[in-house]
């Protein structure tokens, strides 16, 4: 059994080493979607023409995706957190009242 774990460890180690070595540089290949998401800046009028900054008014495109375009996901995440905390409360409330 230990030999299997050792072989799995070596394979995983080589995989992580190789994937860290073969990783692409940032911005390579250039993304076609950056202008779609963040928007296009008009330098003559000084305003954003379309995109996330124009639609939501937030400078951080990640937050405008998380809270605006995919707001349902954040609501579901809040529901998961609420359910987990309600479970912990239900588990430990009785110990406190005794």
């Amino acid at each position, binding site marked *: 059994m230990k030999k299997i774990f050792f072989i799995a*460890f070596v394979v*995983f180690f080589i995989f992580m*080493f190789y994937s*860290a*070595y073969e*990783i692409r540089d*940032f911005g390579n290949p250039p993304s076609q979607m950056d202008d779609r998401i963040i928007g296009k800046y008009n330098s003559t009028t000084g305003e954003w023409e379309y995109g996330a900054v124009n639609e939501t008014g937030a400078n951080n495109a*990640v937050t405008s995706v998380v809270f605006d375009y995919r707001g349902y996901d954040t609501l579901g995440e809040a529901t998961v957190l609420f359910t987990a905390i309600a479970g912990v409360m239900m588990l430990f409330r009785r110990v406190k009242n005794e």
Partner: protein
Amino acid sequence: MIEISLFEIALILMSVFMIASAIIAVWFKDLLASVITLAVMSLILSLYFYVLQAPDVAIAEAGVGAALTTAILIITVRATERMEED
């Protein structure tokens, strides 16, 4: 001679340290030291996220993984046994 950049050296070093701390966390018999080693692994993972240009995930990992999980596990270790039985 393969050419290797500083970025890849940083990534490889962080991968090696992460795997080493995870294995040490399994190998220790003292559970408190094991929890601290998990916190070290979480901190290096947060650094990894920061180097890969995801600062949102890095802040969340440093807050939840390195602080809150460690606190909850240390509370649990203090309430139960500290040494692992063979």
